[in-house]
């Protein structure tokens, strides 16, 4: 070959930064900037004073950082005559979140379990209808649901919004658990049956304890999904239970003279905080879950 005696190939191949490798890192870097940019803009804007925002570039760092906008967004920003900030929405969001998440995951797990291990008659009709429902724009359901819920006096109540979230969370939850349980060895279930377990015993003693990973996934999906909801919160929650997203929209669209972009950005970050924390704490599960649950379609 072309190697001279002086440089007999020996040991590790000399590492050269190939053009491809450089391009790869360049692409990833540009992508990272693209993905990070909005958050960066939100953060720096929320730390600037209004004059600086009006005269400077949105990308510039704050010349004198202030946390005043955060305080305003949290506890002083106004929607109409209410100037309590978006902290009210935080509590409301949690009030909606907790029961909605529990109910939808619970029902989804039971559904998945029944559909995959027990396969009751017409079970697939439930599944297919639910899945079809997942594709249908919410707008198809909203009006009749408003009427139905008001018929049973649940419209604009906490249970009302919880029911709505449960209804619309059910398709994905059912699919998630069904796929997970389908992949579980049926022998385990058969062993449970041979040992005399009934429907619920097997579920609570056998299946549920083995559902840890998928429960985490379901939790992540539902917490972020329900927290980020805007439409249902606006229509079904009622004034006393308006979630944070709706509060955010109110704050952002409420203007006293000039638009307080710094306060708006602070409020936006505050609203996005819960799902972001969930995501950063459980990012690994997040990815794994998408692979586990949704993949088999």
């Amino acid at each position: 070959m072309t190697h001279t005696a002086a440089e007999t190939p020996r040991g590790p191949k000399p590492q050269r930064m190939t053009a491809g490798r450089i391009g790869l890192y360049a692409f990833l870097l540009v992508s990272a900037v693209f993905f990070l940019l909005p958050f960066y803009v939100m953060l720096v804007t929320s730390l600037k004073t209004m004059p600086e925002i009006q005269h400077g570039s949105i990308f510039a760092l704050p010349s004198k950082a202030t946390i005043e906008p955060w305080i305003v967004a949290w506890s002083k920003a106004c929607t109409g005559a209410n100037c309590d900030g978006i902290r009210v929405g935080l509590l409301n969001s949690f009030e909606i979140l907790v029961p909605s998440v529990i109910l939808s995951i619970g029902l989804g797990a039971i559904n998945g379990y029944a559909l995959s291990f027990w396969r009751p008659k017409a079970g697939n009709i439930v599944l297919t209808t639910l899945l079809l429902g997942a594709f249908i724009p919410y707008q198809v359901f909203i009006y009749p649901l408003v009427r139905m819920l008001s018929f049973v006096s649940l419209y604009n109540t906490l249970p009302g919004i919880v029911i709505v979230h449960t209804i619309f969370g059910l398709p994905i939850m059912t699919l998630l658990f069904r796929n997970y349980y389908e992949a579980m060895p049926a022998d385990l279930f058969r062993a449970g049956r041979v040992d005399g377990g009934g429907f619920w015993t097997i579920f609570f003693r056998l299946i549920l304890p083995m559902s840890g990973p998928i429960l985490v996934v379901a939790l992540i999906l539902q917490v972020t999904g329900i927290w980020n909801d805007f439409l249902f919160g606006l229509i079904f929650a009622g004034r006393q239970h308006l979630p944070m997203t709706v509060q955010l929209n109110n704050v952002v669209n409420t203007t006293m003279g000039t638009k307080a972009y710094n306060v708006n950005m602070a409020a936006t970050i505050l609203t996005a905080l819960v799902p972001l924390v969930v995501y950063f704490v459980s990012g690994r599960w997040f990815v794994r879950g998408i692979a586990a649950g949704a993949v088999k379609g």
Partner: protein
Amino acid sequence: MDTSVAVRDLKISYGALDVIKDLQLEIARGEFLVLLGPSGCGKSTLLNAIAGLIDVADGEVWISGRNVTWEEPKDRGIGMVFQSYALYPQMSVEKNLSFSLRVARHDRADIERRVARAAEILQIEPLLKRKPAHLSGGQRQRVAIGRALVRDVDVFLFDEPLSNLDAKLRVDLRVEIKRLHQRLENTMIYVTHDQIEALTLADRIAVMKGGVIQQLDDPLTIYNRPKNRFVAEFIGSPSMNFFEGSILEKDGRRVFDADGMKVPLPCDLAPKVEPGRAVSLGVRPEHIRIGEMGTNSDEAALRGTIDIEEPMGPDTLVWIRTGERTLAARCPADARYPPGQTVPFVFDMRFASIFDAKSGERL
């Protein structure tokens, strides 16, 4: 020796950990070399290094007289077969076989010729249009071998190719590979943890442990004269029977003594061990004979109780308890060995091995 593959001063590290250190290996043209060892012994790492699939920390790899240390796998003149077959799942068998040729822009007639030849050799002609998903494990592995075959390479590398197959297929394909080697006369390097595969296929076996080749020899030597305790223990099923003890001088003869079990050493062994030395005695099961009293000086007469009898077909394994120990003996199938019976037995010391207790080296 007409060297086909040579590995010199090879060192491979994962981070601070050296998995292979200062390894030397020469393989002759047309030789079938088996790398044998338990999992984690470095045999696959070594194979991957020869293939160029992992970076070496130091040393050289030569194939067919070329220093290929820095070369891409595809330029090394090797073909490789994997445990998981690594077939391209969306392609038919024919496409799988021809993919590399098409990428290398061989002309159509040449591709067809090579594919046809490989298919003929491996008897997979009827399968050419099928997708891998519709093949049995054995068929898949034939296709994987075929993929290496079409490339007309000097050296075949096999990375545990039969481990995913069931027992019967494994035997069939083993024979197939041996036949293939006889027909092609290529150099083949074969990694396995299965000693039967190693013993049946190899011209030479390299037994590895901890990244070091423990013994490199032809199969019979490996079996009969293991270089150290590890090799002795690893080869053979059931494993060699071992006794820990020391050497005594008795009546002018050197005797192996383990808790009162006294075994005289054969003449050729005796001079190698001085009295008082701590050693292990290794006796393979087929060198234990039950029901005999020892008729010549190379045989030690002992007694034990029969624990379990395992008829294997051609012969029977008998587990004998003597003192604290249980040992296995391979006996003719025509006799019965009722459990509980006390029997005499002898070691055929001509085939026994003695290892130093400390170093484990053969004496």
